């Protein structure tokens, strides 16, 4: 299935992906997604829908059994996880997404390893410009930072290599409401800088507020897709997948 993307060639196109840890027991059972350059796409769905597995298998961390993943037209489904970042696809896991025993700076330098030597220092400065908190704490162990700051390190680590697409697995998990807001403001800012964003979220309200489009997965397959505002306003979908009553309001996200 392909979403109407008449004017743009998709930057990321996932077709009929089947994946899971055990070959006999697929968790993702033929899910598809197309993402246009510069979009923010959010993947929603009930617990156990395979959202996390979907994004992790695109990132190369969960074995794929079949299906195609194309990044800017290039087939990348067979590439190992460590090659994907060279291709321009970065991933921020949900938990344990920083190296806690390393300093903030070592976390970022590690990611810079795939850049040419001359680009590493300027890129580090760019990240410190974008995340001023991290510049102040560059010599602290990342494990000693607060949850919100760790999330910042994780996102900065992914952005170090100037990826074309960043995928995030529940960036708001475990954060206070105020920090969640900050994370989504940051993501909107990153998109403005020209980075395409795909995120899996439980927090449908906050995610739909910044997203352009959303996919809803159920039982490892596509259940619905559409513009963020349309899904938000569809009471049937809200009741089924987006956390029930609290989203039934006709409020339109900004």
């Amino acid at each position: 299935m392909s979403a109407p993307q008449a004017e743009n060639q998709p930057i990321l196109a996932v077709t009929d992906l089947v994946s899971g840890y055990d070959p006999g027991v697929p968790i993702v059972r033929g899910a598809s997604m197309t993402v246009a350059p510069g979009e923010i796409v959010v993947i929603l769905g009930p617990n156990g829908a395979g959202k996390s597995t979907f994004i992790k298998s695109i990132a190369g961390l969960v074995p794929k059994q079949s299906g195609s993943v194309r990044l800017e037209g290039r087939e990348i489904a067979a590439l190992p996880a460590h090659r994907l970042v060279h291709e321009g696809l970065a991933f921020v896991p949900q938990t344990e997404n920083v190296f806690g025993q390393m300093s903030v700076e070592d976390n970022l330098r590690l990611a810079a390893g795939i850049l040419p030597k001359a680009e590493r220092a300027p890129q580090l400065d760019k990240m410190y410009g974008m995340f001023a908190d991290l510049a102040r704490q560059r010599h602290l162990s990342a494990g000693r930072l607060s949850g919100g700051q760790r999330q910042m390190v994780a996102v900065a680590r992914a952005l170090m290599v100037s990826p074309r697409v960043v995928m995030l697995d529940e960036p708001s998990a475990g954060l206070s409401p105020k920090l969640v807001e900050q994370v989504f403001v940051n993501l909107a800012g990153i998109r403005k800088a020209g980075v395409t964003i795909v995120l899996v979220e439980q927090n449908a309200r906050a995610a739909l507020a910044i997203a352009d489009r959303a996919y809803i997965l159920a039982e490892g397959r596509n259940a619905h897709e559409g513009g963020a505002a349309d899904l938000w306003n569809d009471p049937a979908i809200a009741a089924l997948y987006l956390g029930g009553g609290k989203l039934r309001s006709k409020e339109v996200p900004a």
Partner: protein
Amino acid sequence: MNLQFLVDGLLTGSIIGLGAIGVTLTYSILRFSNFAHGEFISWGAYATLFTSGILGWALGGAVPAIGPFSFGWTLLVAAVFAMALTGLLALGLDYVLFRHLRRRANAITAVMASFGASMALRSLLEFFFTSSPTYFSKKLQIAKQLGLGIRATPDQMVLIGLTAALVLSIHLLLTRTQTGRSMRAVSENPDLARVAGIDVARIVNITWMIGGALACAAGIMVGLLVQIRPYMGFDLLLPLFAAAILGGIGSVPGALIGGLIVGIAEAVAVQTVGAEWRAAIAFLLLIVVLIVRPSGLFGVRS
């Protein structure tokens, strides 16, 4: 009390420390206890003996010793060559054995397999070189008085210096280079390391090479200071693990300091209680540290 135990302990401790660095790296990056690590020590010593023998033969007779030391330059060349060779042996063992178990089996299977590999490697040495001890050089060295009742041979002094240089370079590699950062990253979180663009298989190979090379260096030290025999490495295995655990699994400085503590404690025991207590002291220390500080002296994991 005679201070001689300091030199003896420092030497034994350096040997144990060099071996323990390999144990701690393999454990933290590959997540299993490699009981065949002692065999890398023995194979390293025999590889050096064999290579220096061939060099001597090719040059038509033994090369004169350097200055006050018991060995000539052929041994130094052979040592470098044998370190690379032992690294390749470790890599080869991973290639034919551990790599497959990592994919399919659990950690205990890998540990048992390493026991088997240990026996096989040891028996091969006995087969090729017999079980009777041999030496790099039969030349006798006269110990020099260093004051305060401490005596040391020139060999002993230069080996302590070389150990310090080796350990310092490994420490700098781990803390200052991209390869070292990648090793620490893989040790902490392999999946996140892959996401960050690190080729984990390459890091695993580098880890085996470093562990094997350092074990070889330990083997050469044992060969120069004591003797070369097929069981030389296996006999060191338990002190190696004691040192790695004492220092905190995963910590390179910890492994060295753990080695020095075990070495010096052994030397003190030999001097005060009696030589038969030598092996017991490592475990007494280990038990005390594990009760007081279960993650080891420099450990970060609980």
